[in-house]
């Protein structure tokens, strides 16, 4: 397979050298693998890539029921940030953010990471206090974050209507300079291509229908294309996590909710940073093509439908119009939804399970795109060495028994409040 480079591109443009063919074809699964990874989203593919490259484990199959990145990986609003509060999440997401700048080079595939900055707006004294506390926690861990006042905000983002008589109060904001966006499907493709180059089989249109256990240990995976024997399985299926875990008799503190995003027609550059509004949640950024990408909070009801209610699109859009009045005259082009796996404390669950050989990577809800490289990295380490990577120790499933929860929102054990 070709190594992408300036020379390769130039030669292809001039019609010299071989034409680029498909990067990989439809692999037919073999009978046995050392590791089976269920779910061909960014997380599953990243785990395969790091297992092969960092740990020399390449007898791997990635099993995807649809197409690569067709789950939440290709449906998210592509925001990459690390503005967490609680120890555990702080260190993990700090590390996650630090992996993005080198990812394109690392994968030899352009994931278009754009560290344009992230801006979280405070609309009340209480919110501003919380952001100051969060910025302090981040600074203590060496993760970039600063608080800015409304005057500075006006300079940073002239398009925002924040004064002198703003339609919604804006008291300040938290700015994270190295945060931004990345092209989501390129992340899936980049990891897939790199994993494939290292000998990983990637099987699409193949659904896992059962997990086979013997004496509380994984021995195989039943799929729509036959049985695959293996003694190590990684489950990375986002909204379908509960169903896969149930196949191994594990009951997860997770519910599945739809989340929507929508995008406008292309406009000239107007918005510099990814901007987050906190009177009801709404986030907005502008793509390289000029489209304004918008998203809001979870649909309030547990749902496996990859679509949501038009009422929620209206709610999110009407919030954003207060902040960016020009949006009222802009047409929407597309809206879509994904199904997010939301845990009872709002944080992810990554690591081993009570079933031998079965590892779980779930509960990322609507904020796990940014975690893709780090989750794959830490899980690969855990699977290959048998020792839970220190960064994901606080994210273990056992916290729901020990009580060491990671409740960022302070919302209690209700999935729909996270």
């Amino acid at each position, binding site marked *: 397979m070709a190594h992408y480079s300036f020379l390769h591109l130039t030669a292809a443009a001039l019609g010299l050298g071989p034409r680029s063919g498909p990067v990989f074809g439809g692999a037919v699964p073999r009978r046995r693998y050392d590791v089976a990874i269920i779910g061909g989203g960014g997380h599953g593919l990243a785990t395969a890539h790091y297992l092969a490259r960092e740990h020399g484990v390449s007898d791997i199959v990635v099993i995807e029921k649809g197409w690569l990145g067709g789950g939440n990986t290709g449906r998210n609003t592509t925001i990459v940030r690390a503005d967490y509060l609680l120890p555990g999440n702080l260190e993990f997401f700090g590390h996650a953010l630090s992996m993005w700048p080198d990812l394109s080079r690392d994968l030899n595939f352009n994931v278009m990471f754009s560290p344009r900055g992230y801006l979280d707006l405070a609309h009340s004294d209480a919110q501003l206090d919380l952001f100051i506390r969060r910025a302090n926690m981040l600074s203590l861990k060496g993760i970039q974050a600063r608080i800015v006042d409304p005057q500075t905000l006006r300079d940073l983002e002239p398009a925002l209507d924040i004064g002198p008589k703003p339609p919604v109060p804006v008291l300040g904001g938290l700015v994270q300079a190295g945060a931004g966006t990345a092209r989501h499907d390129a992340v899936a493709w980049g990891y897939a291509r790199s994993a494939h180059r290292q000998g990983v089989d990637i099987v699409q249109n193949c659904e896992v229908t059962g997990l086979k256990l013997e004496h509380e240990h994984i021995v195989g995976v039943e799929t729509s294309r036959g049985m695959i024997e293996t003694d190590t399985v990684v489950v990375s299926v986002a909204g*379908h996590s*509960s*169903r896969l875990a149930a196949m191994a008799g594990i*009951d*997860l*503190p*997770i*519910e*599945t909710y739809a989340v929507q995003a929508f995008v406008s027609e292309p406009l000239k550059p107007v918005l510099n940073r990814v901007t987050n509004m906190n009177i009801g949640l709404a986030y907005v950024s502008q793509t390289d093509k000029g489209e304004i990408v918008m998203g809001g909070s979870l649909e*309030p*009801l*547990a*749902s*496996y*439908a990859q679509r949501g*209610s038009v*009422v929620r699109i209206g709610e999110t859009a009407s919030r954003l119009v207060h902040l960016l009045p020009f949006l009222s005259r802009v047409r929407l082009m597309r809206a879509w939804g994904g199904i997010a796996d939301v845990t*009872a404390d709002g944080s992810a669950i990554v690591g081993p399970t009570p079933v031998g050989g079965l590892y779980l990577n779930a509960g990322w809800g609507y904020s796990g795109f940014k975690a893709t490289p780090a989750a794959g990295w830490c899980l690969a380490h855990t699977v290959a060495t048998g020792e839970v990577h220190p960064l994901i120790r606080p994210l273990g499933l056992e916290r*729901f*028994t020990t009580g060491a929860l990671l409740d960022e929102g302070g919302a209690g*054990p*209700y*999935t*729909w409040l996270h």
Partner: protein
Amino acid sequence: MLIIPCPWCGERDESEFSYGGPARPLPSLDADAAAWRRALYSCDNPMGWREELWFHGFGCRQWVVVRRHTVSQKIVDGRPPENPS
């Protein structure tokens, strides 16, 4: 907009209700830690029909139990809860 069958008022708009989450029976007060862990954190999370609570706040102001399908979003079988919450 979803249509919710209230046992007292008939079929009404979703906007008159607030969502109360899945109908989860609480264990007895002297139940062991494992039972409380299940009650607090476990989620059935079915892909299909499930029972849940809704509060008819802009109607009869009663809690109702319904069955909703988590893919088609169809809501059927509105009835009063056994233990009024």
